[in-house]
């Protein structure tokens, strides 16, 4: 039994036929070929599947695709391209915030949510915001550094924008 859903992903409307039990993460990966969103667990612990729904970080393995209908979804592919990186992508690159890269899209989406709520987080606040995102490679030190760096870039951009 399949039904049609229309999802708004990275600014484009996409209609697909899915089983009602299909998880958003599977639909993103298998139907929409947005494979930047990863699956690292089956108990909603790892955060590799994190996307933004209505601007908030959500684990896409805990949402049915049909539930996400009508809400704007942003995946890592919608953050920035190699020639026009989002400040978080740039900072993860600059600060060596990734090694194997598997956790990275989820980390970046969670960090994006954090910076919207808290533009100047402390190390501690960053570490707590990453409660639901696991990384096995980096020991988190450079992820924290990257998010701090991106926060500074975003703040500088905002104040430059305000001054202009």
């Amino acid at each position: 039994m399949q039904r049609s859903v229309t999802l708004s992903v990275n600014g484009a409307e996409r209609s697909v036929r899915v089983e009602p039990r299909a998880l958003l993460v599977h639909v993103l990966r298998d139907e929409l070929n947005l494979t930047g969103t990863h699956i690292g667990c089956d108990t909603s612990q790892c955060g590799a599947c994190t996307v933004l729904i209505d601007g908030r970080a959500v684990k896409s393995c805990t949402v049915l695709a049909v539930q996400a209908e009508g809400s704007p979804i942003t995946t890592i592919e919608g953050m920035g391209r190699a020639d026009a990186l989002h400040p978080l992508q740039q900072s993860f690159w600059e600060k060596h915030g990734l090694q194997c890269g598997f956790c990275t899209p989820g980390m970046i989406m969670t960090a994006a949510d954090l910076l919207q709520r808290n533009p100047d987080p402390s190390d501690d606040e960053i570490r707590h915001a990453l409660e639901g995102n696991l990384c096995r490679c980096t020991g988190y030190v450079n992820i924290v550094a990257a998010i701090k760096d991106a926060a500074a870039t975003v703040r500088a951009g905002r104040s430059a924008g305000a001054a202009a």
Partner: protein
Amino acid sequence: MPTIFGSAIKRREDPRLITGSATYTDDVKLPGMTYAAFLRSPYAHAKITRVDVSAARQAPGVIAVYTGNDVKDKAVPVPCAWNVPNCELKIPHHHLLACDTVRYAGDGVAMVVAETRAQARDAVDLIDVDYDPLPAEVDPEKAAQAGAPQFHADVPNNIAFKWVVAGGDAAGAFERAEVKVQLRIVQQRLLPTAMEPRAAVASYNGGSGQLTLWVTSQNPHIHRFLCSVMLKLPEHRIRVIAPEVGGGFGSKIPAYPDEAMVSLAAMDLGRPVKWTEDRSENYKVTIHGRDHIEHVEMCGTRDGRITGLRTRVYAGLGAYASTAAPGIPTILHGLVYSGAYTIPNIEGTVYGVYTSGAPVDAYRGAGRPEAAYLVERLVDTFARAAHLDPVDVRRKNFIPKDKFPYTVATGLIYDSGNYEAALDRALEKIDYKRFREEQQAGWKDGKYRGIGLVSYIEICGLGPSQVAGAVGFGGGLYDSAIVRVYPTGMVRVYIGASPHGQGEETTFAQIVAEEFGIPVETVEIVHGDTDNTPQGWGTYGSRSTAVCGSAVKVAAERVKEKAKKIAAHLLEANEADLEWKDGKFAVKGSPQSARAFGELALAANVGWNMPPGVEPGLEATAFFDPTNFVYPFGTHICLVEVDADTGKVDVQRYIAVDDCGPQINPMIVQGQIHGGVVQGLGEALQEIAIYDESGQLLTGTMMDYAVPKASQMPHIETDHTVTPSPVNPLGVKGCGEAGTIASAAAVVNAVVDALQPFGISHIDKPLTPARVWAAIQAAKASGAGNGKGAH
């Protein structure tokens, strides 16, 4: 041009990873693809009396169902590839799917292939199996005793091997010693937990007889070799591709039945087959790490000279011998019992024991963390028994820096070292004397602070192939590179190693760019595909940079030699009169007569005007086989405070000083240390894989297995010393495992140090609050210490 070798340039691999455009194995999608799912045994040990797949075969979307008996004759059992000699190693058959007996909870019983992932899963639930449960045993020491359940007909007492290492006269040393200490240490089972679970996609072209296998692998050439054995398929008909790989930590070295089953199905059905494990499946069946029970002793003189070390180790292998398993608790463990010290008398006995747990194999550090841990725990215990400072005892017993190469009692020859320099550098970061004073004062007020030191060495950069052969490793340990220069001067380098997060696309490009005096952006490193890379042995054992990086360097030098010949010809000069300067070959004394690397690349590739007898083209291949292993070292310091009321351990500072020789990219080295340290901190503080007595994995999901989170881990301070290795042209040593090798012992040493007033001599990791609290309560009850430090 600034020096490229040694600079912290950004990684070349990152743009695809941070934009979501990288391709991991589960991202591979092929036309007509089908999906596989496994039925796995719910019992740790049982006879299979009946398997009924008829309902599953009828289920929607199902294309095929395979049982153990269906595939038994089509495939060779999963090979174990490390036949350690002189230990009567017994390797029982490990069939792709269990035929009549299951030996751990997770053992494969059947595989379903269906049109969709969900249909395959649904059909697995329809398979009906009758089991006759048999007794299980997951404790390696108990499994080796008479009367324990027998897991393999041809392995009495489940003892896979008894391996002995001996040098000097340990028995005599212990007899004569003034100070003796002993510990019983449990090195708990760990779950490697690469964030990307394992996956495989197989595609077979019946017309050409070619199998292509995308697989989460740290060593695609080894996977090709072992798949060729398992599938009885000629090796040249198999192409193995390790695309982007999301971490491995050893768990993606072995050959597993799963990728062989997926390949068999693809060959049988003529359609591509994909399988991706979920995390629960990963925790059940992907290899585990450690699992030692160790009885260890150290002895020495009252003034702190260590004279002997003795061990008896029960190393759990799990249900079957995984690819490298026998070598891990032996060659990579017992041979490094001397640590950083001149211990003249060593004797170790290691029993490899089959149990009812998942197979145990290489997990980050693989045997060396277990060795460093027992040695460094013993050094601290010995220092305390001798009433000496642990720093002084380490200093007194270090192999002196002018004694390298140094042969330790176990027979290894350490290539280089300056252990005291690393210790000094680490101690500079803290005020040791003051810490000790404050510690003593704190004890009086119930404030339990401790310091843990570890001065580790490791054997890595695996290694000379001749030695690999001599110790029964079923392959070589050289590595390889092809450096290919295009007409426009752009360079591609094809390597035998297979990085999966270590950043070698960047560091190896730095090696080449430095050699040719060209921008690093003009060098591309290609890896992971057996169809275009030369035979190599993969990325593990902190070997890629020391071994494969050296192959890259040698191949680049060969290219440069040829370029020099061409330059001499074009400049009508003698080769001897040319010098390499600023990226050009120039005639000495007349710098205007010069040819840049790019010009020579074009001249060689068009071949219009070659020197007599020189072939056109500009590329070279190198197979680099080192003359010895490399032995990185360092000192790590951990400062903790323990809350004696709750048992909670607070890591207040963590300092890592490591020496891996010259660093090609310090940013990447630092990242490796960070990650390694945190894996060791997880091991020390919270990670443990627990089976119940019937062999059920109780920590089977990420809810129960405590992978470190950002909020649980401290900041890590890093620094380094530089002692080049003489065994490779770069002078480099490995750094991937160093952090893990050092950090678990540093934490436990610190906690035991903090709890001195209670007279606690050891607590087994992981030091969860419950365990620390229980140790304090037990110590109080036994009256070992009053908690005030005046014992």
